């Protein structure tokens, strides 16, 4: 090792095993990483998951479809709406349920609002990990506005149980459309301020640019998706490339890492893809609210849906491609539901990425992957 060469031969160094987590603030949940380090250099890092395993897949086998939607909420608790939308789309496709246009537009609205809330939390906590306290407060202040909209919409702030097979459970309350438009108008300058505060900040750039580089071929082989894949330079967005729920009607761009700082695929580019995506989400929101069609918010659907068949359906969540593999046997209960979690795969890259990294950078890498342990462990 190059580090030991400068020391006298009597001075012996040895490998040190460091346990990061499970109760570590920058692991964003209960993730344990076993780090084998040689001085400041990481030789190997083994992520250990499963601390938050709540048997989601086993539970759903003994429950009706409607009852298993709250479990989907609790997987990625920071983007619960997106989790529900994916699950309901899969059930509807198997059960031949028609969804009214208004319900589809409402689903797009809540998904994009939740995407903004999730990305705000991601970048807020990321800046906190790196050492910037102010953007964290700004991000949480703005996230609060989204949560208030959700509270008015369905009564809950975090776990909604709002999207159901056939539509949504409640129509937009009176005046909420204006409130969402007001929020969009308010939010863009705020986001520009956060962007100005953080993205070009020299300390932030030094900590994140050129750190934790995931080349595109490696990212594809690992099956990364969402901002992590787009940060590596692939313009791949399921909303654009396999549209669902009427996303083809809206005009928005797919944001990829363009190496405004650092190189494509590093932590900074993954972070900046999220900033760019929030601007695009606002664009979708404005279009969806202004074009919101009249009509029913819930289609005609039996009280207990009885789908039949087998499907793998993926939707674009804030953290990447969330897929549901559902095997339905024509009864009220699912035979098997398997959720493909984008964060699960994002954590599995750590083993390869971390060797040779400095210990301080592991926090920068982990935050840029934007993992949620509830979704990894299910």
């Amino acid at each position, binding site marked *: 090792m190059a580090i030991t060469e400068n020391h006298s031969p009597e001075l012996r160094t040895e490998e040190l095993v460091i346990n990061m987590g499970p109760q570590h603030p920058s692991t964003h949940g209960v993730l344990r990483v076993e780090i084998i380090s040689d001085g400041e250099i990481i030789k190997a890092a083994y992520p250990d998951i499963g601390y938050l395993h709540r048997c989601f*897949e086993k539970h759903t086998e003994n429950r009706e479809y409607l009852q298993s939607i709250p479990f989907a909420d609790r997987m990625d608790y920071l983007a619960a709406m997106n989790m529900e939308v994916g699950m309901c789309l899969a059930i509807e*496709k198997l059960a031949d349920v028609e969804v009214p246009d208004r319900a589809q537009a409402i689903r797009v609205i809540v998904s994009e609002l939740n995407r903004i809330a999730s990305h705000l939390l991601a970048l807020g906590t990321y800046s906190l990990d790196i050492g910037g306290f102010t953007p964290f407060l700004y991000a949480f202040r703005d996230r609060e506005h989204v949560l208030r909209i959700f509270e008015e919409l369905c009564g809950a702030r975090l776990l909604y149980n709002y999207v159901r097979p056939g539509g949504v459970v409640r129509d937009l309350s009176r005046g909420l459309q204006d409130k969402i438009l007001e929020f969009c108008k308010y939010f863009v300058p705020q986001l520009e301020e956060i962007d100005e*505060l953080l993205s070009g900040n020299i300390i932030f750039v030094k900590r994140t640019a050129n750190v934790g580089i995931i080349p595109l071929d490696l990212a*594809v082989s690992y099956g990364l998706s969402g901002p992590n894949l787009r940060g590596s330079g692939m313009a791949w967005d399921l909303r654009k490339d396999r549209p669902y729920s009427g996303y083809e009607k809206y005009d928005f761009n797919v944001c990829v890492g363009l190496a405004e700082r650092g190189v494509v695929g590093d932590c900074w580019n993954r972070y900046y893809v999220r900033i760019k995506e929030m601007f695009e989400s606002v664009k979708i929101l404005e279009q969806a609210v202004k074009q919101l069609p009249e009509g029913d918010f819930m289609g005609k659907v039996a009280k207990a849906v009885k789908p039949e068949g087998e499907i793998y359906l993926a939707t674009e969540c804030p953290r990447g491609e969330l897929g549901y593999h559902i095997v339905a046997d024509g009864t009220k209960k699912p035979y098997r539901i398997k959720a493909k979690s984008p964060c699960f795969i994002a954590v599995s890259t750590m083993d390869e990425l971390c060797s040779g990294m400095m210990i301080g950078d592991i926090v920068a890498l982990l935050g840029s992957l934007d993992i949620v342990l509830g979704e990894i462990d299910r």
Partner: protein
Amino acid sequence: MSSQNPEIRLTYLPEPVPSISKIIGTGLPKDVDTVAQALKSQFGPTSVAEVEKSHKGDPFIAVDPSKISEILRFLRDDSKFLCALLQVISCVDLPNENSPNSSAGEGTESAPAPSVKGPKGHIAVVYALWSFVHRHQIILKAYVSKKSPRLATASGIYRAANWYEREVFDMMGVEFEGHPNMARILLPPDWVGHPLRKDYVFPEEYNGMKVPL
């Protein structure tokens, strides 16, 4: 708030990045029969067991489990398919030979419920593949017997397979031969049994702690 340095200020310019569909076009629409035909001509007629496309969901191709790694490598590298992305490896515990048709064994449904497709007494391991170039999804299934659930690993072909296979092993007990680290991933290493099997019996206690049900 004036910026510290005008050069550092990053205004977001919405540069239209063409998505892959714009660059390459919609590509070749791949229906399952074409894929099955290509697999048959490459690996012999026994390599494809059946093509399921009668139900409402996605069509599946059931392939010979002993050739799974060759088939995955072929689908990844062949210029007609180029499935660069392994989306997921899932697994389904199919009903046993002697079990009645009903799925959960509830007894509430008196009418014979339509059972799940696939050979009885087997575990279906499902691979969902996606090609960025041709924009098609191919879903493969390999049926392994519950008596000796073994399958060749795909972790050398797709890095994503490494953890997915560990999860399948953890939950369903399918062992992947040649996997670098075939250990449990979500459950503790000393856990007994594979919980997503339909005949799994819930333990009363674990290491002296009562297991809440």
